[in-house]
């Protein structure tokens, strides 16, 4: 049991008020605060915990994007990852980058690094896709434990408690496997100052998607981005009869 790959995505910080670009091609990212996707933080924490419990030897943090993503990798290193891989993607390729391209990159890296586990956040807070983990597992033909709220290593197998619509589902899957982290899996640690200093010395390797034999062509084209309609005030009614009358009047029932 040696190596875990953890994916970390650099996204617009959750507390920022999002604005749509005037040309409706996307949201404003220039000059806006970015940070690590919260679900990726949970994924990193889980991987580091597994290493501390001595189930795995090495945690490798991976991120795809332009030079700025190295900050996100450094944060993962400060949380306890051993080394980082920065897959350089910029310009048009970066704007068009989606779960399929990332999944292909991770699948290639998982094979190259001989990883036993790939741990990702369940979704990113900018696109809410919830696809990368599942696609990665499919491309590798590996089992997947998604929406994980509890992970236990049991010999060559992993027991995963999943949060599903009906409640909790427990599955046992063989390794190598792909896991995606849900909110309640753990509480990510704060990077302590000494760990931030140590992170400076850890290595981040650079590579391009072409080095991994991955084509970045997107099959998805974004036509237009709009803000959600402004929420209008509701109408208060006095009785149930009024309510029924109003619902009938606007055609809802």
């Amino acid at each position, binding site marked *: 049991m040696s190596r875990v790959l953890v994916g970390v995505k650099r996204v617009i*910080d*959750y507390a920022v008020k999002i604005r749509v670009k005037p040309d409706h091609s996307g949201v404003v990212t220039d000059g806006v*605060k970015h940070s690590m996707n919260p679900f990726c933080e949970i994924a990193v924490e889980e991987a580091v915990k597994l290493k501390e419990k001595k189930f795995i030897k090495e945690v490798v943090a991976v991120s795809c994007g332009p030079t700025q993503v190295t900050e996100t990798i450094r944060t993962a290193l400060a949380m306890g990852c051993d080394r980082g891989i920065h897959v350089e993607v910029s310009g048009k390729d970066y704007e068009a980058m989606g779960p399929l391209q990332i999944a292909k990159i991770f699948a290639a890296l998982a094979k190259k690094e001989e990883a036993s586990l790939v741990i990702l956040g369940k979704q990113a*807070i*900018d696109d809410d896709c919830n696809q990368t983990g599942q696609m990665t597992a499919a491309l590798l033909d590996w089992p997947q434990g998604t929406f994980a709220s509890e992970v236990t290593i049991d010999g060559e197998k992993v027991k995963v408690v999943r949060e599903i619509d009906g409640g909790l589902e427990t599955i046992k899957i063989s390794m190598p496997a792909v896991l995606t982290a849900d909110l309640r899996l753990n509480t990510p640690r*704060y*990077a302590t*100052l*000494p760990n931030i*200093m140590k992170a400076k010395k850890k290595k981040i390797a650079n590579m391009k998607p072409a080095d991994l034999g991955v084509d970045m062509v997107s099959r998805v084209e974004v036509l237009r981005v709009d803000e959600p309609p402004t929420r209008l005030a509701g109408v208060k009614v006095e009785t149930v009869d009024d309510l029924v009358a109003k619902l009938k009047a606007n055609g809802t029932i």
Partner: protein
Amino acid sequence: MASPLIRCFSKVGRQVSRPWSVCQHGLRNRSTQPDMSAEQAAALGVTYPPLQTYSEEEGMMRDAVNKFAQERLAPFVSKMDENSLMDPEVIKSLFEQGLMGIEIDPEYGGTGSTFFSSILVIEELAKVDASVAVLCDIQNTLINTLFTKLGTAAQKERYLSRLSTDMVGSFCLSEAESGSDAFSLKTRADKHGDYYVINGSKMWISNAEQAGVFLVMANVDPSAGHRGITCFIVDRDTEGLQIGKKENKLGLRASSTCPLNLDNIKVPEKNVLGQIGHGYKYAIGMLNEGRIGIAAQMLGLAQGCFDQAVPYTRQRVQFGKRIFDFQAMQHQIAHVATQIEAARLLTYNAARLKEAGRPFIKEACMAKYFTSEVATLTTSKCIEWMGGVGFTKDYPVEKYYRDCKIGTIYEGTTNIQLSTMAKFIDKEYDH
């Protein structure tokens, strides 16, 4: 954007009826500019980047402490202020995060970072609680620096690793009869063979309740005046050391401030820090640096208070519009924001000057003097902007108002700062 699933939001959601929490969550990520690191500036060919440029390491540290302070410390603040007591959990987490040994060498368990990092850490802590910030400031800028600069190998071995992991330190200079006139201190140290007997009392000693080690300034030779002042390392469990009842203060209440009684305490010769009779030099030297730390504390306090009040003015509607939209309010808010920015630049510049090994004393005095005045102005205005609710303890701004007052008093009163600056200015015009 999947909003409700983020853990901070879920914490706030539960307590949304409590004004403290509603205000607190907005404190994260208040900076309008994303940072450009020094490395990025260099890559872009910017030779003289603006003062608010941080190395990647400094930026990461600041963000880590910002997050830690907003999430882990904020819930304790109100209770600690009310009970006038620093929660041991808080102190433990400061040590765990490596915030108490920022400049200490990793060899002794410290973080091994720079003075400017300490300044950023103190500023971020002060945005949430000035008492926690001052505990961290005294430890880093006074205690740790004194040990690092003056300690023998044995002393460093014995104390630095404890100071970075679990032991708080205290700096004991002031007495009932000697505040600004520090060198007229009366505490005596009489030599007896290979040990000293120290008698006297100290007043206004911060961190005294929590400290495991005290750096006591005592005079070994009163006939030599201030040239007899010597710095002694006194362990808490030394017989005859009595820590008095803590003061019931207006502000910075969670920070313990106690009188100390030294009743025939025996201190071995090897516990002298630095050289005999050089204590006054060390005190001045350390307080010059500590000044910048206090400036950072007042700066964080002002910014934290401002960050609480402005969102309120954007929400509160009177006469059909947000109170922020009234011109008088806008002018006041812009004026205060300018003062805070100026205070920040003074503080950062003084810190960078010190790091560069250039003369910095006048600038440090300016930073401390100006930021404490700005903190007073800011907190006073913020309460006004928030009107009646600003005046209640349910909202955090009244605490900032009470806490800021000490800024013009401790670690060198405003008058002392101004006189010191004047001395430098006088010399500048010598031809």
